[in-house]
């Protein structure tokens, strides 16, 4: 469904992606792991055009993603994103945040969207908070609203950019739980994460990135239990045993 074909990107003279090849099938959950600066967030942001890339090709269902293309907007309506810092619209309530895309971008019927948005907020456990503004919600609650906002677009895939990194430790669980349910429902998900345990339990496949390349990829259990590559082994040891 999402295909990377020899993708290269640089910021000025600094090359952050040096030839990424990978394919994510429909319904798969793929985790991108790797040290900071390895290019995993950049790769994710190239998928919905928040970053452009210089060489190679990213395509979604055969449609090439090109940040300069005027059709980029229609790609964004098919692939949603959840951000590290939630990025909820602070001047709108939880419900309005969820309704914003379908009503104003997809121009769907407001009443219908409203009901769907309520159902989504209920699903992420926030039925009580529909009329709260983001500033009165905890980090975990905000991120769950952000997931509902992403789902409201009825996307074919969701990109998660370190969705739990900005959360207090006690709130990580509630967000991962929502993601786990999504994965069980066969949502296609591409997740940049440092949650190795989550990657092991939930993802179908893990891509380990370092220095702008995919060093190793394969089924989560295999890679995380028995990494072939020194760099993967080293990285995993450091994140699982930081002391």
């Amino acid at each position, binding site marked *: 469904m999402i295909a990377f074909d020899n993708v290269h990107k640089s910021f000025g003279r600094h090359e952050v992606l040096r030839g990424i090849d990978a394919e994510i099938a429909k319904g798969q959950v793929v985790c991108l792991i790797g040290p900071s600066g390895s290019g995993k967030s950049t790769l994710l942001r190239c998928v919905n055009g928040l970053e452009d890339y210089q060489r190679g090709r990213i395509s979604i269902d055969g449609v090439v993603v090109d940040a300069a293309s005027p059709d980029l*907007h229609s790609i964004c309506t098919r692939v949603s994103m959840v*951000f590290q*810092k939630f990025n909820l619209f602070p*001047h709108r309530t939880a419900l309005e945040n969820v309704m914003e895309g379908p009503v104003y*971008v997809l121009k769907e019927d407001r009443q219908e969207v409203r009901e769907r948005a309520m159902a989504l907020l209920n699903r992420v456990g926030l039925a009580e908070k529909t009329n709260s503004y983001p500033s009165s919600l905890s980090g975990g609650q905000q991120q769950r609203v952000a997931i509902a906002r992403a789902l409201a677009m009825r996307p074919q895939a969701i990109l998660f950019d370190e969705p739990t990194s900005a959360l207090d430790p006690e709130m990580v669980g509630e967000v991962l739980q929502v993601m786990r349910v999504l994965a069980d429902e066969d949502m296609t998900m591409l997740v940049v994460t440092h949650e190795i345990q989550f990657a092991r339990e939930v993802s179908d496949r893990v891509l380990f990135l370092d220095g702008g390349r995919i060093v190793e990829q394969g089924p989560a259990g295999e890679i995380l239990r028995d990494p072939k590559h020194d760099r993967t082994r080293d990285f995993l040891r450091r994140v699982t045993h930081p002391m």
Partner: protein
Amino acid sequence: MSTFVTNATEYLPILLRGVWLTVLTTTLALCLATALGLVWAIMRTSGISSLSVPARFLVEFLRGIPLLVVLFYIYFVAPDIGINLTALQAGVLGLGLAHSCYLGETFRAGIEAVDKGQIEAAKSIGMRRPLMMRRVVLPQALRIVLPPYANNMVMLLKDSSLVSVISVQELTMQGKMLASSTFDNMTVFTLVAALYLCLTIPLNFLMRRVEIHMEQAG
């Protein structure tokens, strides 16, 4: 003291006619300055150089000329090129143009202060730029900009006294005429100053209320 009160009650109706024109000039000029200021700000933040460069030059150009000179220019030079404006029209135009520069810069700062994550979130749900500006950026910029905007409003109101030099009979002009016919400078200008304060203080108070209200709304 009693003569002050007697004289004041005599002068007040005349000065109030001036107050009306001051309010009218300020309101019209504020509408013009706000609309134009928004245009300059959107041009400057568009990222399109054929829009941002002219807007920058225009703002720099107008900001560099004293308001009095702008007013003289519009009122006295424009007829030479076939544009005849009444004093009020010229005053509103001059005030509006000059203040559109300050407001434009204020709005620009407000737009640029909106968190970049907001723009990414808007893009990530497929918003195009105009929709993003209208639904995401401008409402948030408005909150950031409100305190300096209120400040600009009060400055504009005070600057409206300058249009007296092109014979708009607003508060300052009425005061000056009254003072020169009665020689009662003390009473007249005390009243003029008090009347300005009666306009500016409630205005400040009102804007403060709006600000608090908007903060409460999230």
